[in-house]
């Protein structure tokens, strides 16, 4: 097990080195001049030169790259050109919002998706099944931003059940420790703040979670349906085990493998959806921040953020592979 983890971690190194080179090259290939974008129309050649010298953009590319990697190895992602803040710091400020949104969305998808998929498989061909399958199909084909706009219109504007935007009500002056607003509310015992944060999360999380939900439903359904016809399930039935035991110990456990893979894949994909969802709900997370960074050509922010996202994406994949071992002893043996 340990050897497996170490080998996987070692395999990540060439990927990350490659990624850092690609990111570096890509960011330099962006058209336009970051200094000009910072200084605006009134920039003098002199001041542009000063900014370029400050960030080292006037030096040869190889030298720039080596400086960048050297700083990177010391945990320094550089400073934002636009705000001057350290990239790592602004990442840590914005990231909890996205993680909060993405994890609530994924949790929603898992909690609703696995039972629905299981139910559909149990009653294959029935009304529940038809309903669940067509519903999941609709979920897959509905664009995230359209769903977000619809939810906002119906539940925030018309019915007024949920707040239409932002992460929290500005009137509630709550303290933030971790920047996970819901967690902060609980930690500081400001339960109204936690509730407020939750209410702000509901609509964006549903919008973001619908596609993973639809996919989890279908994978669970297909996988459970396949396992239910396996010989060992028939054996278990013949032994007279209760339906409950069969479902839990034999069917679900074996059917979960592909579901776990899917959840891992979806967790990575949530970042793409988060950019759109965050922009509809003005949810102040990394999605929105990254988007501004691209339009403002903030090189250090782009390089830093995407690198961190890629590292996490690889780590999620590693976790998925480890989860296999926990679910299926056969994988562990290999």
């Amino acid at each position, binding site marked *: 097990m340990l050897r497996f983890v170490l080998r996987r971690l070692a395999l990540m190194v060439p990927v990350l080195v490659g990624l850092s080179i690609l990111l570096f090259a890509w960011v330099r290939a962006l058209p336009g001049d970051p200094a000009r974008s910072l200084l605006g129309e009134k920039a003098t050649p002199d001041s542009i030169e000063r900014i370029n010298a400050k960030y080292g953009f006037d030096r040869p590319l190889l030298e720039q790259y080596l400086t960048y990697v050297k700083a990177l190895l010391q945990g320094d992602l550089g400073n934002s050109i636009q705000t001057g803040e350290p990239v790592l710091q602004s990442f840590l400020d914005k990231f909890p919002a996205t993680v909060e949104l993405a994890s609530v969305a994924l949790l929603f998808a898992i909690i609703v998706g696995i039972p629905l998929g299981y139910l559909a498989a149990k009653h294959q*061909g029935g009304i529940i099944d038809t309903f669940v399958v067509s519903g999941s199909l609709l979920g*897959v084909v509905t*664009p995230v*931003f359209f769903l977000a706009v619809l939810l906002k219109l119906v539940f925030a504007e018309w019915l007024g059940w949920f707040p239409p935007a932002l992460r929290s009500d500005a009137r509630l002056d709550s303290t933030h420790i971790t920047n996970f607003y819901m967690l902060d509310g609980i930690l500081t015992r400001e339960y109204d703040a936690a509730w407020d944060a939750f209410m702000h999360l509901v609509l964006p999380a549903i919008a973001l979670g619908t596609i993973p939900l639809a996919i989890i439903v279908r*994978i669970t359904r297909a996988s459970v349906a396949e396992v239910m016809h396996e010989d060992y399930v028939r054996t278990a039935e013949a032994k007279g085990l209760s339906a409950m035991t069969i479902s839990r110990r034999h069917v679900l456990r074996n059917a979960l493998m592909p579901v776990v893979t899917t959840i891992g894949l979806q967790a990575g*994909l949530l970042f793409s959806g988060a950019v759109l969802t965050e922009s509809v709900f003005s949810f102040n997370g990394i999605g929105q921040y990254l988007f501004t960074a*691209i339009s403002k050509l903030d090189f250090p922010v782009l390089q830093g953020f995407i690198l961190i996202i890629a590292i996490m994406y690889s780590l999620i994949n590693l976790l998925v592979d480890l989860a296999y071992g926990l679910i299926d002893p056969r994988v562990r043996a290999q």
Partner: protein
Amino acid sequence: MSIPLPPSSGSAAVQAADPMGVDDIAGVGLWRGALRRLVRNPTAIVGAVIVSGFILVAICAPLLTPYQPGTAEWANRVSTNHVPWRDGDHFLGLDRWGSDLWTQLVYGARQSLIYGVVSTLIGLVVGTTLGALAGGFSALGGRAGIWVDTVIMRIVDIMLSIPSLLLAVSIVAVLGQNAYAVMIAIGMAQVPIFARLLRGSMLSQGKADYVLAASALGLRKRKIVMGHVLPNSIGPTIVQATLNLATAIIEVAALSYLGLGEADPAVAEWGRMLVSAQERFDSAPRLALIPGFAIAICALGFTLLGESMREALDPRGRR
């Protein structure tokens, strides 16, 4: 990742009527058999009808409406609080700029299909080339083979480690905001999917009995790979391409939604219709609902078609 549809009652009836597998007796090939199963599947028919409907609308756009897209001819009739609905001969009403909504919608189908098809083709060509190289060299074996395979797959891994929308956004940022950039951006985001899929199925085909048989007959490795393994592995890629068309259409709209789509305002595009509708959401929600559902239904058509193609090609369905 297989997302099978429920076995439809139609195909079950066919199977019951065909217990011996007439397909096999008649010696029908893989592709013809798949096509035969496809036309008997109601899901496939619904998907095909939706898709051909959109294609027809896209081709016949100028015949379906007397107006031109992107013109604000009736701008004097719309105001902040009033966007007319069923106004004279505009049966879907006007949009917020004062142009005919139906015209925008019909020409929008053209844009979505062109963008979707071209970008998927880009992804397909680049992705399958990479995948075939990796899979082929890996099947040929030897030090060089493994080396080529590893390098290509690491590059694909890197592409895969960047969320697809961010990749697309950044490519548009590099190439500038125009039709080509949008198509290349969305196509490149699909490359890793095709590359991994084709390589994977080539590797599993490489272990098939017929490869062993062919090499026992003394066929050269290169000939086996090019003449047998590759053609037999291409099926899942075609299915994936159909499914990717749905994703591509949604992603084109997403780019427009983020303000990074086609820069020419005279071009009707569903995503942009949706964005511009947001400001009139309270007074005229149909401006957002109509293009939104158009995107979803179009994506639904390609998804249904792709899923039933997958089902038809699945060897387990051939019994």
